Structures are given as structure tokens and as C-alpha cells.
């Protein structure tokens, strides 16, 4: 006799549910929806009562307990599940976890938790392993069974993103981790609470494993509070309508969602094949702490989606990069979570969304890819690294499909990367009034407010989008400063020239300057895309100008500038940099994000920034009035406006604004069109040139490795690659040795830096007070 509905075990119920779906194509074999068809209004009212319960529980729980990251930024979500772990209704918040917690429940059922350790009324289970059901370790969830008269009738799960989860460096995205053992605290759907008491071993282990135990404690309580509220309120509905009706209702809710998804696909998309390519690059060959992890990577995350005749989707991940000794390994659960949260916003935003959505999608995941490899030894602290770019493909698919259907306002050119994320921590030194030796975390959350991609009718949303949380919110800077005591903001402003160019431009974003002050033994590292555009725009729109570079200044004169009331840097337009203008000291400008921590002392300065969104359409078609607005808002510099958009404008001192010269701009646009004619080539010439570069093997180590890895990870992708270029079956590209590769990259950085210095000097900059850190000294000397 099991604890599930009808005396079945949970495993029996799960297996039956999967079997009947395979046989019939309907959730629980529901070819019709009797309750809905009989009384749709009552049906809708009950479902929305359930939905209101999870929304209410989340909001209430945040005010019972919760860390600032949950309370002020909303990094949390509460979901109601069936006994087999299928989502029914969810709250607002980080919806990526609606499906990941589902995977966690199913893992518990398959592992036969019903027998050992047993599942009882009042139990709470805690988990955060991405292979079992999560995205990354910092998202910790609590799963709670709901019993009605000794029968398990469902689950409720609440997840909260932690400020810190332990690991080999501080922060919420541990990008220095390469193995599981560096990821920090792990819980494997662990029974932590029974008979009204939390187990002391869990209590002590969890709090001692993280750098911010008070926040962990608050969030643990908040999750339990949310789940208890949901339990109580769901049982009231069960009492009201009867348990049989409740079970029928929740199954119909999922089948209806599946049908709605298919109807929506048939209404908004076109059957056929959609392809997108997205990238990231990780450059740690000189800095990784573990010897085996010293490598530079070009990571690929392409997506091919086939919209079938019946409205279902087939998602193919061929061509994706392999797993490895870095932080960005993933799993099926993160993939499905990412897919879920994106589709929820793109196709299912106005209706009941739950497991039914997922049932309409099938995946092909190469087992050796960063998604398919289940080897637990790899770090999984930030699968977002590739998941975020990858899900841009869904935006592009909807943009193509919906445009062709006449819904030109739908979809976008992409969701861009949610970086840059400076992380770290330090100790107060007592000079600012804070007691000395107090640990402070650095975990700024501006990364949750990026620029969205543009589409056929609008610019991208400015500083207001995060792929993983539809309620993107960076929180109050004052709130962060209260926590980050020795890391003080000097400025936050619009980052010029970060939005992808286009007829409709990508969303813009912010940049920030902060100074270490009153602090000691501080470290900080930043996490951003490096050396690549993570995606391109659509229909002539350009890629977003992500934060491909790092900028830090050490041993600066900032205190003297304050004392003398002189200007100090408020941001960084590299073509007119304020850092070099005002600051003396050692400047580290790198063409990649730091990833590994640097040591910072008082008076050291850090610049960080968010990404812009990709653009849509030819920038030469951007209406002049919009270009004028861009100039006056500081979205683009006049230089970029002229070079890319063909805009000639003058600053009117009297009016205090930029005015576009229409005639001169029309002429400039014609000039740029002529340059296009002069500098472009036929496809045949392009084809031969690219092919000969491949045949000559003239590719740097990460690029050559990317192609050759596919031979093993995705043989079908590799065959397509060979077919396209008509290359022999035994084709291979030589891979540079590490020493030679580092030499080549050092040489490039050195030449680039020298050219940059000459450029600045030609603009009148005095660089005599500046020293630049050279690439060959990175990771060795300051």
C-alpha cells in the first residue's frame, strides 16, 4: 500500500503517468476534460484560487524572513505540484525553477524515498544539485509533501537564490570552481525537517558551509513558511471540493496547458526549422588555480528547433560544446528550466502554464555535451554561462515565426547575457566607523537588469530584462551598500555604446564605478562574456556590445581627488576614458573578464557594466528622430552615431541638446552604402577564402579545439560542417600548443594596448601618470 492517491506508491503513479502519456499523447490519458467542459467558470475560479495561493505564500514568506536578495529583488518562486512532481501553478519570481523542482521531486520518487527515508506529513526536503533538479548550487529549494488524510496529494516547492553558497571563492556564481568539490554546499533532496524539528546535522552543516549564515538561515525559514502556507490553503480547497475532484482538476489543468501550448504554437509560429548560434568564451589559461583547468575556451551553444506539423517542438542541441573543468557544466534540468522560463514569457504569458508546456517539447541532447554529461565530478556552479545565450534562440524563433504570421510585435532579436557580475568580499578596517574585521560580501545584482533585444516594431527594453526572472529588478544601491561595507559606489549611469545597433536598437544598460575604501584583505572578480559576441541581431541588427573587457585601477589617487574636490571617473567610454583622464596609478584593461579574483586595497577602483540587447534591422534605416533621442539620452556617442547610423549632428549650446542635420545625415548614409558596395564580396569568393583558412589550419587554439571537439561530441554536426565546406572525411585542424597560443595572445594584447595609448595621446591624453598591466604579467605580478 503506497502513500499516493488510490493507495498507489508514488513510483507507481509516476510510471503510470509517463506510460499513459506515451500511449495516448495526453496527460494522464485525458482525451477530454470533463470538469472543464461541464463548468468552465468554476474550473477557472478554482485554478486561479490555487494560483493566488502560491503568489500569496511567496509574498508573505518574504516578509516573515528572507535575505535582501529575496526580499528586495524577488529571487524566489513558489510552485504547487501533483503527487508525481508535475507543476500545476506557480507564483511570480524566478520561474526557471518551476521545472527544476519538478525534476527534484521525480528524482526522490525514483530513488524510492517513500521507503527510505520515508515521506511523512510535516517533512521538508532541501536540494540544490543541478543534476538532480536545479540550475546552479546557489539556488536552494525546499520541497514539502502535502498530505490529506494520510494520502500524499501533492508537493509544494519554494526556491531562493543565495547571496553565497560557500565554494572556493565568495559570491553567488562561483566561476572559479572547476570541480564539484569547489562548488560549495550541496544538498541532495535531503530530509532536513521532521516532526516539527529541523535536524541539527543539517542546521549546522548548512550554516557552517556558507559565508553568510544569517542570510541562509533567514531564507531557510522563509521557504518553510511559504510551503506551510500553501499546504494549509490547498487543504482548504480539497475539503471544499473533495479529494477526487481535486485530483481530477489538477490533471485537467496540466492537459489543458499542453493543448493551449500547441494551439498557441499553431497560432504564432510557422512549421519548419529554426536555427540559432550563440557563444561564450572563457579565458583562464593563465589564471586557473587547478593546473588541469588552465585553458581558454570558445564555448558554443547552438539551438535547432523544428516546429512539427502537430504543433509540438523538437529541440536539437547538436554542435554544443563538451563538458569540462570549468564552472559552466549543466544538465537536463537547467536546460529544461531555461527553456521553460523563456517560453513562458514568449508564448505562454497569458494562460495557465505548467508541466503541460514541457510535455509538448522533445529534446535531443548529445551525451558528451555540457548539457548531456551527468558526470558529478564537474563543477555546476554556473550553467547560466551557456544557458542564457542559448535561450536567445527561442526569442529569435518567435520573432521569425510571429513576423511571418503577421504578429510583428512578438519575439525579439535575443535576450542577451545577464552579466557582468562582480563578486567577492573583504573585511572592514575600521576607518569608516564600522567595527574592524567584519566580513562583507560583494554580490551586486545589477546583472538582473540588462537590455533586451529589439524586434520589428520597437527598441529593446532598456536596463530591465533578465532571462531568468521576468520581474527583473536590480534592487536599491543603498541596500547593497549596507551589505558591501568596504565596496562603495561612486557612480551608476547609462553605459554609452552598449546597445546593439539596428533600425530598432537593442536595449541599453548601465555601468558603475565603485571604490574599495575602509577595507582590507578584499578580493573581487568579474564574470562577463569575453572576446566574443554572444549572439547576433536579427534582420541586419548587430550583436550587443557586451562587456568584453575588464577595467580596474590600483593604488589610485582617488582620495586626493576627493580632498581637492576634483572630478573623478563616473564610467568608461573607452574612446574618451575618464579613468585615464582623472586617475593616476596602475590600470588593468583586459580584453576578457577577470574570472579569477584580484586582491584589492583601499583606493582601488573597479568599473563594471551590464550588456546591451541585440538590434533589429539595418541601422541606416533608423529614423532620424530616434537617432536624435539616442544622442540626447547618451545611448550612443556622436562618433558611433556617425560611423554606424550615418548621423551628422551638432550640439546646440543654447537648447542644451543634440540636433540632427537631416541633409548631412542623408548624404552620410549614401556614403556608407557606397562603402558597403566597395568592401563586400560575392559569396563564392567568401566561400573560397573561409575554406582556405580552414584548410591551412590558421585558427587559434580555442577555435580549432571547438571544431575538433565536435567530431566526438556531435558527429552529425561535424558531418554537416564537412559537407558545407566540402572537406574530406579525415579533415582535421592542428591545435596550437598552450605556450604558442599564450605568446600569440600576449602579442596581440600588447599591440592593441600600444595602439590604444597612441589613440588616446592623439586626443590629448597625458598618460605619464598611468601604468598599464601587461597581459604577460596577469596572474603573476601587479
Amino acid at each position, binding site marked *: 500500500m503506497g502513500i499516493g492517491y488510490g493507495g498507489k506508491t508514488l513510483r507507481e503513479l509516476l510510471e503510470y503517468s509517463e506510460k499513459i502519456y506515451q500511449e495516448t499523447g495526453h496527460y494522464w490519458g485525458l482525451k477530454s476534460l470533463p470538469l472543464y467542459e461541464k463548468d468552465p467558470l468554476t474550473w477557472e475560479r478554482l485554478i486561479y484560487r490555487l494560483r493566488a495561493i502560491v503568489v500569496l505564500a511567496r509574498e508573505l514568506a518574504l516578509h516573515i524572513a528572507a535575505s535582501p536578495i529575496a526580499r528586495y529583488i524577488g529571487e524566489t518562486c513558489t510552485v504547487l505540484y501533483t503527487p508525481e512532481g508535475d507543476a500545476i501553478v506557480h507564483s511570480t519570481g524566478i520561474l526557471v525553477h518551476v521545472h527544476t523542482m519538478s525534476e527534484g521531486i521525480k528524482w526522490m520518487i525514483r530513488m524510492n524515498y517513500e521507503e527510505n527515508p520515508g515521506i511523512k506529513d510535516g517533512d521538508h526536503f532541501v536540494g540544490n544539485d543541478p543534476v538532480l533538479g536545479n540550475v546552479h548550487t546557489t539556488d536552494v529549494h525546499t520541497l514539502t509533501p502535502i498530505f490529506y488524510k494520510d494520502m500524499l496529494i501533492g508537493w509544494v516547492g519554494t526556491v531562493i537564490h543565495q547571496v553565497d553558497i560557500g565554494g572556493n571563492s565568495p559570491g553567488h556564481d562561483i566561476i572559479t570552481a572547476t570541480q564539484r568539490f569547489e562548488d560549495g554546499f550541496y544538498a541532495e533532496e535531503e530530509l532536513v525537517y521532521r516532526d516539527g524539528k529541523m535536524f541539527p546535522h543539517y542546521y549546522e552543516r548548512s550554516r557552517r558551509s556558507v559565508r553568510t549564515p544569517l542570510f541562509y538561515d533567514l531564507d531557510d525559514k522563509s521557504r518553510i513558511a511559504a510551503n506551510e502556507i500553501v499546504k494549509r490553503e490547498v487543504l482548504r480547497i480539497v475539503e471544499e471540493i473533495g479529494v477526487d475532484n481535486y485530483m481530477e482538476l489538477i490533471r485537467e489543468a496540466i492537459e489543458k496547458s499542453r493543448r493551449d501550448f500547441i494551439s498557441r504554437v499553431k497560432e504564432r509560429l*510557422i*512549421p*519548419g*526549422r*529554426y*536555427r540559432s*548560434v550563440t*557563444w561564450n*568564451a572563457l579565458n583562464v589559461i593563465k589564471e586557473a588555480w587547478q593546473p588541469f583547468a588552465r585553458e581558454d575556451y570558445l564555448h558554443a551553444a547552438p539551438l535547432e528547433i523544428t*516546429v512539427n*506539423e502537430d504543433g509540438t517542438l523538437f529541440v536539437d542541441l547538436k554542435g554544443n560544446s563538451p563538458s569540462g573543468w570549468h564552472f559552466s557544466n549543466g544538465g537536463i534540468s537547467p536546460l529544461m528550466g531555461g527553456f521553460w522560463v523563456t517560453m513562458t514569457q514568449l508564448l505562454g504569458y497569458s494562460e495557465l502554464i505548467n508541466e503541460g508546456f514541457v510535455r509538448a517539447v522533445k529534446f535531443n541532447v548529445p551525451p558528451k555535451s555540457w548539457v548531456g554529461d551527468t558526470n558529478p565530478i564537474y563543477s555546476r556552479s554556473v550553467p547560466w554561462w551557456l544557458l542564457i545565450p542559448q535561450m536567445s534562440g527561442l526569442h529569435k524563433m518567435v520573432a*521569425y*515565426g510571429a*513576423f*511571418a*504570421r*503577421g*504578429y*510583428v*510585435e512578438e519575439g525579439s532579436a535575443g535576450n542577451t547575457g545577464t552579466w557582468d557580475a562582480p563578486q567577492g568580499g573583504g573585511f572592514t578596517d575600521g576607518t569608516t566607523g564600522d567595527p574592524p574585521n567584519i566580513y562583507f560580501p560583494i554580490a551586486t545584482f545589477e546583472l538582473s537588469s540588462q537590455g533586451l533585444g529589439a524586434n520589428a*516594431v520597437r527598441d529593446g527594453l532598456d536596463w530591465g530584462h533578465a532571462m531568468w526572472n521576468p520581474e527583473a529588478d536590480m534592487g536599491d544601491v543603498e541596500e547593497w551598500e549596507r551589505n558591501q561595507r568596504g565596496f562603495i559606489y561612486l557612480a551608476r549611469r547609462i553605459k554609452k555604446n*552598449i546597445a546593439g545597433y539596428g*533600425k530598432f536598437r537593442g536595449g541599453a544598460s548601465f555601468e558603475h564605478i565603485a571604490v574599495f575604501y575602509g577595507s582590507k584583505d578584499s578580493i573581487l572578480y568579474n564574470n562577463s562574456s569575453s*572576446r*566574443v*559576441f554572444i549572439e*547576433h541581431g536579427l*534582420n541586419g541588427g*548587430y*550583436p550587443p*556590445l557586451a562587456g*568584453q*573587457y575588464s577595467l580596474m585601477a590600483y593604488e589610485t589617487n582617488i582620495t586626493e581627488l576627493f580632498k581637492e574636490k576634483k572630478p573623478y571617473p563616473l564610467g568608461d567610454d*573607452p*574612446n574618451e576614458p575618464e579613468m585615464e583622464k582623472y586617475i593616476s596609478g596602475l590600470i588593468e*584593461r583586459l*580584453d576578457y573578464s577577470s574570472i579569477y579574483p584580484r586582491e584589492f586595497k583601499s583606493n582601488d577602483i573597479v568599473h563594471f557594466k551590464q550588456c546591451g540587447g541585440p538590434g533589429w534591422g*539595418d*541601422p541606416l534605416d533608423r529614423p532620424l528622430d530616434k537617432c536624435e533621442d539616442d544622442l540626447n539620452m547618451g545611448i550612443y556617442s556622436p562618433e558611433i552615431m556617425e560611423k*554606424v547610423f550615418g548621423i551628422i549632428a551638432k550640439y546646440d549650446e543654447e537648447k542644451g541638446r543634440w540636433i540632427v542635420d537631416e541633409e548631412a545625415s542623408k548624404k552620410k548614409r549614401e556614403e556608407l552604402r557606397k562603402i*558597403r*558596395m566597395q*568592401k*563586400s*564580396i*560575392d*559569396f*563564392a569568393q*567568401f566561400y*573560397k577564402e573561409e575554406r582556405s*583558412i*580552414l584548410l591551412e589550419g590558421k*585558427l587559434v587554439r580555442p*577555435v580549432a579545439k*571547438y571544431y575538433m571537439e565536435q567530431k566526438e561530441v556531435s558527429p552529425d554536426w561535424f558531418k554537416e*560542417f564537412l559537407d*558545407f565546406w*566540402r572537406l574530406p572525411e579525415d579533415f582535421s585542424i592542428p591545435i596550437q600548443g598552450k605556450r604558442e597560443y599564450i605568446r600569440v595572445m600576449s602579442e*596581440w594584447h600588447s599591440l592593441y594596448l600600444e*595602439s590604444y595609448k597612441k589613440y588616446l595621446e592623439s586626443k590629448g591624453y597625458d598618460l605619464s601618470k598611468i601604468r598599464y598591466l601587461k597581459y604577460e604579467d596577469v596572474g603573476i605580478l601587479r
Partner: protein
Amino acid sequence: MNEEEKVKRVEQRIQLLERLLQAKSPIDEVFRVIAGDKEDPEIAFDAIIEYFQRKVNWKEKILLPINDHLFIVCKDGKPIVKAACGYEFGDFRVNWKVFCKIRVRRNTEDYLEIYPWWQHAHPYFMELREYYCPGCYKLLATEAVPIGHPVVFEFLPDIVTFYEKWLKRPFPCGKVEFKDLTNEYIKNSIKI
């Protein structure tokens, strides 16, 4: 919905498309269109076809818009890609990018022509391809890929299934098999 009502709504939608696609809509209208109830799928589709059909100076029937410059049209009984400016690209099952003029940025100088210092991809890691319409040199696509990556065929519609199974209308052109013909085209047209 009677025929008169349908015609009226298609006309209203065409006017809306003009405002939206020409960036003439005030932002509150754009927001209402995005967030409000969606137009009936048949009206939305008929309107976008008619909108573009009225815009272009040629007579071929538009079967499906790919974007605001490229359309799958019926030419001599075969579905091909044709540009608003009149340039004809070929069978829609061949990636239209292979008929384009292409500029490739794969060195620092070319990147700095349009990007600020430090804010472009590394030329050893990635190139930026710009695909122009050979008829009017409008920029039709950008592609950010490592050197040697195959040209990306982003959208290959199964147009016959769409008309016959989803719209439940006869396909108004010669039926073709749903298939990617790009490699075949390259093989037959470029000698190596």
C-alpha cells in the same frame, strides 16, 4: 465574422502594420499591441501579406514574409525568395545568404571602424559577417561566428504544410518537398 467585417479588420490591421513597422506608432500604442488581445490569426496573416504586396513594385504573389525586405513569392509556379527592391535570390530552400554580397570583419581595424575600443569581439576568436542585398545594399543580416563556421540558415519554413495543414488553404504555388538545398546549390555553383 461576415466578409464585410473581415475586410474592414484587415484594412485596420494594415494601417496598424504601417505605423508599427515604419516606427510611427507612439510607444503607448506599441505597448497596447504587445500586451493587448491578439488579432485573429487569419486576419493577422492576410493583413501582413496584403500590406507587403501593396508596398512592392512587382507582381509575384507573396506567400510568406521572412522580414520587411525578403519574401517567399511564387515565381513561374515555384516558391523563391525575392527582395522588396526586386532582386531575386532563388529557391527558398537554399539559404538566401548565399546570394548576398558579404563583408567580413575579422581584424582589429575593421572592428574599430564601427565599434569603440575594447568593446568588440577578439578578431582571432570571432568574425562578424554582414550580408547585404545585392539589389540595394540594405543590410539583411549579421552573423557573429568563429572563422570557418558554416553560414547559418536561420529560418527554413515548411511552407506547404503551413498552408495546407495549418491554414487549411490550398498552397497557391507549385508544391515542393521540405528540404534544405543549400549545400547542393553550393556544390553545383562554386568550383573549388
